[in-house]
């Protein structure tokens, strides 16, 4: 599904400092992987690099066998659904329906199919009542689910979620967790919310100062304990 090999990213090519250094990871079909790490470890940077927003300084990224380059970028962005940390960054259209329809319209999906897909996604996420609501009047939890609907409607095969439980209370986080568990897509989730990650993910990766610090099960449990403490 997703294969990253020796990925390095620099914010400024002229600088020595790497935001990510020699990161290699893979996510299999249907697998949910949590990406853990301290603030500034490079979690969000990695997600931005995976959708081609930040160009890699070194290394390769492959999604469903397609290498991330200029030619494959539109196709890859259709396969990857990116849910941003702050839903206000993502919900830029006036109503929930319009926002959900934004992505499919860009890819030329017929209007009838957009309506059908939107209704289905809203039904799955249990937010059909929000369809015609103004985005800025939604609560934090509703905004998060509306943002998720906006990427699910594009039928991605991989979901990238950047701190999905930030701004959410326990109830809303649980609701989101249930929604994500019901999805068949692969997920790569950055989070500080360890109970959320434990309840949802099959595997954990740890980023430390831009480097993947542990991949084998022994190190994973060690790092997990260190973060939990």
């Amino acid at each position, binding site marked *: 599904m997703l294969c990253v090999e020796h990925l390095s990213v620099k914010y400024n090519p002229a600088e020595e400092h790497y935001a990510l250094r020699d990161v290699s990871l893979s996510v299999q079909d249907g697998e949910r992987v949590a990406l853990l790490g301290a603030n500034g470890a490079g979690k969000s940077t990695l997600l931005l690099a995976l959708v081609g927003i930040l160009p890699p300084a070194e290394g390769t990224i492959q999604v469903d066998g397609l290498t991330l380059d200029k030619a494959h970028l539109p196709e890859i962005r259709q396969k990857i659904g990116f849910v941003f940390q702050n839903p206000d960054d993502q919900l830029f259209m006036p*109503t929930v329906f319009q926002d959900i329809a934004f992505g499919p319209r860009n890819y030329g999906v017929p209007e009838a199919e957009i309506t059908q897909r939107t209704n289905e996604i809203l039904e799955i996420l249990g937010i059909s009542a929000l369809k015609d609501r103004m985005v800025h009047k939604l609560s934090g939890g509703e905004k998060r689910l509306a943002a998720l609907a906006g990427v699910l409607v594009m039928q991605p095969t991989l979901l990238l979620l950047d701190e999905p439980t930030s701004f959410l209370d326990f109830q809303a986080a649980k609701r989101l967790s249930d929604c994500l568990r019901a999805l068949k897509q692969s997920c790569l989730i950055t989070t500080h919310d360890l109970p959320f990650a434990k309840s949802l993910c099959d595997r954990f990766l740890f980023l430390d100062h831009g480097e993947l610090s542990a991949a084998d099960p022994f190190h994973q449990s060690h790092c997990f304990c260190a973060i939990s403490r």
Partner: protein
Amino acid sequence: MANLSSAMKSFCLLEQLAEGNSPLHRLHPGAKLAITLVYVVCVISFPASSLSALVPFTAYPIVAMALSGTPWKPLLQRIAVAMPFVLFTALSNLLLNRRVLYFLGPLPVTGGLLACLSIVLKAFLTVGAVLVLIATTSMETLTGQLVRLHVPKILCLQLTMTYRYISVLIQQAQRMYAAYQLRSCGKKGIQMRDMGCFLGQLLLRSFDQAERIYCAMKCRGYDGTYHAECRWPVTARDAEAACVASAAFLLLRVFNLSVLLGKLI
């Protein structure tokens, strides 16, 4: 803080008004746009001296407000916001054109005075008509209709996003102001020496957010093209209303109703 809260309330009010269900709300957005456009063009096409011909045009905003159940007070408040800019232009006419045209009792009426009143009335009417349009049509349908009328899509997207992010910007400013107040030892408002930092931070945060929004748009396939859909069928009633209203405005533009009534009396 009170100002920011009232700005947010006032922003939400127009949206609440647009969700109404009056005959004007049910009218096709294209028809409303056409009526407003013809009205605005007719009003601004009058020469500066023809003040009396503008008087019958005051009926439209009043009738539209009554038909749509739009409260007059908030609309007047919004019109008042535009007035200082208009007054500045209008008052300059008083100084530039002092030629006396006639006397109204002991009062000399100059060309400048007529132009001044004409500019103020035109602004009042046109802003009022546009506000009635916004108060009876949601932004979603309005931009969809603009796209359908082949208004450049980039302008429609700008309009949509500006509208969407006004509330985000106000909320951001509210949060910053609350944080400022909590550490400002009970001083009222933002001190002048802190104003630069406050506005600068707000601007920088807006830039950051704009960048993140653009990333989010790119992730969902945005390539510079705005795709909007307006699926509101035009009925015979909509076309009829647009034609009747537009014809009435054009007739009022050609014939000065005030003068005709004056002759009759």
